[in-house]
């Protein structure tokens, strides 16, 4: 057993938790963040990558719209390396009422979301694959953001301020001392060791899992409803900018170019368990039809991967619990000193990735208020490590890097231009990481071949550099293939079938991975 101590324990390593731990650390508290898995493995990593301009909410949720517009500018600056300034459009297709654009424009003006109405001809010139039947278009400041890079940027900033980031630490209990929180008990998932963290305050940022965490502190019935949405990545950018349907928020109304792919999203289904989200074939078909409406020929483009994320929507008595789309996208802070007579615990949920920094600011303000220890928030003005230059991401970054080092280094993943050096560097930083953990930072296996060529190389390099032994290497190889498949099979059609046939031929055929030792009952973390 290991005992640690901190002023504040942050539970949850998604965008909210990472933002909160950074804020807490920057205000001078000793902070520890724990997550049962890797950073950004939950909802943060399972969304479409849109850095909202606010345009999406100007009619449905004006308060959120304004917050998005303000935070968009801040995040683009302080986390420049995670953000691409793609710009975006709201377009009315032939099935949308162009007159609704007037209502939208009025909302955008009132909420101070920057926009400009542009001619259809100009939009089609900029985005030649867009549906030529669009009748109206507004230009907005949407961007795309790499959720994992954003979370790691915030976490690394927190570390610079003395915070500890403990991934793969599953909270099993929150101890109380009288009417106060006193200790967080975790299990180190990699070693099985129990870790106890003495603390004065716990900030529950577990989002869709927040109800489970509150329950561990003896605070029952915190209802965070997982609003599940599916996303599909297409193997290249069909548009250069974010494209939104000019309608009231609905399913399949956003297409976002992120890195080498573009992502269509999303749906909204109430889920019972955020760990058991399904991608139904009819939802995939629905996304395809929506894609076809934005970009004719969408169905003939190649889908490479699908995933589902669980929005952490706090149950609100104003809407029925089955209608997750129209629950508030705003954030909620539950102060358990009022609700459950337990001091030192705040649960935060709701909100959205774009406003994660602001959410963190508010929750840490609330903590300071309860502690009667006012300290100012400084997160909006300081760039995170990696963004010091203030240069935003552009898609050609990696190509430029490889052009510089191609005579000195091998490219392990051709799809995503990931070099051996990038991989070994990440291994040194996260020696216990699975290949999926490394993937989230490196995009290993995320391109068209979905790991067909790079998986064996990653395994070989990790073993050769003695970061892992043969048992783990073989287990990680198999785990990565299995996990990739989770996102491939729901959208397996078209050219991705062809790719899968080749990948199967390589792994099952040529390499015979099915008959490596130790497959039965394997558990690799």
């Amino acid at each position, binding site marked *: 057993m290991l005992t640690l101590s901190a002023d504040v324990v942050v539970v949850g390593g998604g965008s909210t938790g990472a933002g909160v731990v950074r804020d807490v650390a920057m205000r001078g508290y000793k902070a520890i963040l724990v997550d049962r898995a890797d950073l950004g493995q939950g909802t943060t990593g399972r969304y479409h990558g849109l850095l909202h301009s606010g345009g999406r909410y100007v009619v449905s949720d004006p308060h959120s719209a304004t917050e998005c517009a303000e935070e968009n500018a801040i995040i683009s600056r302080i986390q420049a390396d995670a953000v691409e300034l793609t710009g975006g459009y709201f377009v009315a297709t032939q099935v949308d009422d162009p007159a609704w654009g007037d209502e939208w424009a009025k909302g955008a003006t009132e909420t101070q979301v920057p926009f400009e109405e542009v001619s259809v001809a100009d939009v089609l010139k900029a985005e030649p694959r867009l549906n030529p039947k669009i009748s109206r278009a507004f230009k907005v400041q949407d961007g795309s953001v790499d959720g994992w890079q954003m979370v790691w940027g915030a976490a690394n900033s927190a570390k610079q301020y003395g915070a500890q980031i403990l991934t793969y630490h599953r909270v099993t209990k929150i101890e109380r001392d009288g009417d106060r929180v006193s200790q967080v008990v975790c299990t180190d998932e990699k070693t099985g060791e129990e870790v106890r963290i003495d603390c004065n305050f716990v900030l529950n940022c577990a989002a869709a899992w927040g109800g489970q965490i509150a329950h561990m502190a003896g605070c029952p019935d915190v209802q965070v409803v997982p609003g599940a949405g599916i996303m599909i990545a297409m193997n290249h950018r069909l548009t250069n900018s974010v494209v939104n349907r000019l309608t009231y928020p609905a399913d399949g109304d956003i297409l976002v170019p992120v890195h080498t792919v573009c992502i269509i999203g999303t749906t909204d289904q109430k889920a019972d368990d955020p760990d058991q989200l399904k991608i139904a074939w009819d939802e995939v078909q629905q996304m395809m039809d929506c894609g076809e409406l934005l970009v004719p020929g969408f169905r003939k483009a190649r889908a490479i991967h699908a995933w589902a994320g669980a929005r952490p929507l706090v149950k609100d008595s104003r809407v029925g619990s089955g209608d997750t789309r129209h629950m508030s996208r705003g954030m909620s802070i539950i102060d358990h000193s009022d609700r459950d007579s337990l001091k030192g615990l705040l649960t935060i949920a709701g909100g959205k990735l774009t406003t994660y920094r602001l959410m963190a600011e508010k929750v840490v303000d609330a903590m300071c208020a309860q502690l009667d220890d006012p300290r100012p928030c400084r997160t909006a003005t300081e760039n995170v490590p990696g963004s010091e230059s203030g240069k935003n991401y552009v898609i050609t970054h990696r190509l430029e890097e490889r052009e510089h080092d191609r005579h000195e280094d*091998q*490219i*392990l993943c051709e799809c995503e231009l990931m070099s051996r050096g990038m991989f070994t560097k990440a291994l040194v930083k996260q020696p216990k990481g699975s290949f999926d953990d490394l993937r989230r930072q490196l995009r290993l296996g995320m391109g068209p071949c979905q790991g067909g060529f790079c998986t064996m190389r990653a395994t070989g*390099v990790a073993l050769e550099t003695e970061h892992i032994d*043969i048992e783990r290497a073989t287990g990680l190889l198999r785990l990565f293939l299995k996990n990739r*498949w989770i996102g491939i099979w729901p959208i397996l059609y078209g050219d991705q079938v062809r790719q899968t046939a080749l990948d199967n*031929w390589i792994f099952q*055929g*040529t390499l015979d991975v099915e008959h490596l030792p130790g*497959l039965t009952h394997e558990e690799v973390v």
Partner: protein
Amino acid sequence: MTRVVVIGAGVAGLVASIRLADAGARVALLNKGTGGLQLSQGTIDILGYAPERVERPLEALAGFAQAHPGHPYASLDAECVGTAAGYLKDLLGPALLVGDPAVNLQLPTAVGAIRPTALVSPSMTAGACVDGADFVIVGLRQLKDFYPELVAQNLARTEPPGGGRITARSVMLDFPARDGEIDSSGLTYARALDDPAYRRRFALAVKGVVGDAGTVGLPAVLGLDDHGAWADIAELIGAEVFEIPLPPPSVPGMRLNRALTERAKSAGVRVVPGSKVTGFHASGGSVRSVSLATAGGAREFVAEAFLLATGGFESGALHADSYHKVHESVFDLPLRIPEGTLVHGDYWGDPQPLFTIGVDTDENLLVRHPGGEPVHNNLYAAGGILAGATRWQEKSGEGIAVASAVRAADAILSVAATATSQGAAS
């Protein structure tokens, strides 16, 4: 002289073309890409798993066919497969293909699994995983598709199929294929090793790191055109040497592909590469011609018989659209499609039904409506396009391809002979 159009130049198309041309047919071999051999492990599988590991594939075929009634092997029996494998062996000769179709060799893969296969390049046989085998696996720093530790350590912890133990250690050798190049493909190494002077330097460098003991395992890059390169290297090292196949591009597969293509050309096969068949003309129950997209316009190829050897999903011969409607790309043939969902989420589970989709044929490989009448009376199919097999899991791809190619070719020749004798009689 009967005219035959063969579409697809993988192992099935090549073998059928050679057999037809040798028997006097006028054969045009039309291919869009370069065939599957260079995507493969470069050996001839017959049956590796059923689903347990198979030691004697021809003996296992009858039981396998009984358990898999819709499988190509249900009509291609052990005698047919054995004969076809022997035929291929004769075509390629002992410099390229050795082994006994009745007995599987158990050879290491590039991740250190032990894989059953039937006929192999003579450069691979020393890798047989038997009790007491003592291997030194050598990797090349500049070749990113082969990690000797992975191979050696997995082999060392695996009991070989016949029981016992394998000893394996690994060495990484820093030896560029080309000066100053850090990221070379296996093909670049293979070409370099065709040069005797480079080969000599290479072999001496290997000798320097492996020491005395053991059989030396190397990535399968030991020469492309020079089929004796591996033996030369073994002699220079002074040890037994074996090649381990890599992910594509497959140098051993490429050797087979080149040899068969040359053999086809010398048999008089007209090889028309790099063009896609875009349409066909049929009348009176027969396919009369296919059109080939070529520069300057389509060209018609008229023939008495047609053999479809285009492969499966991997080559684009089959295509599943976004509604999960599956199409055959050249003739839009009716397909045998399993009931129920085509794909499931268990990566290590049962074969995916999607990949068993293919065309149905009678015992002479004449394409028919699933379980029914022939679609055309002169359209045959061979190889990966046939329904019912999960070739990569069964390790059955080349066996099905060669056996179906030989049988289809013989059926075409037999029909032609009957027509000729009838013509002569009338």
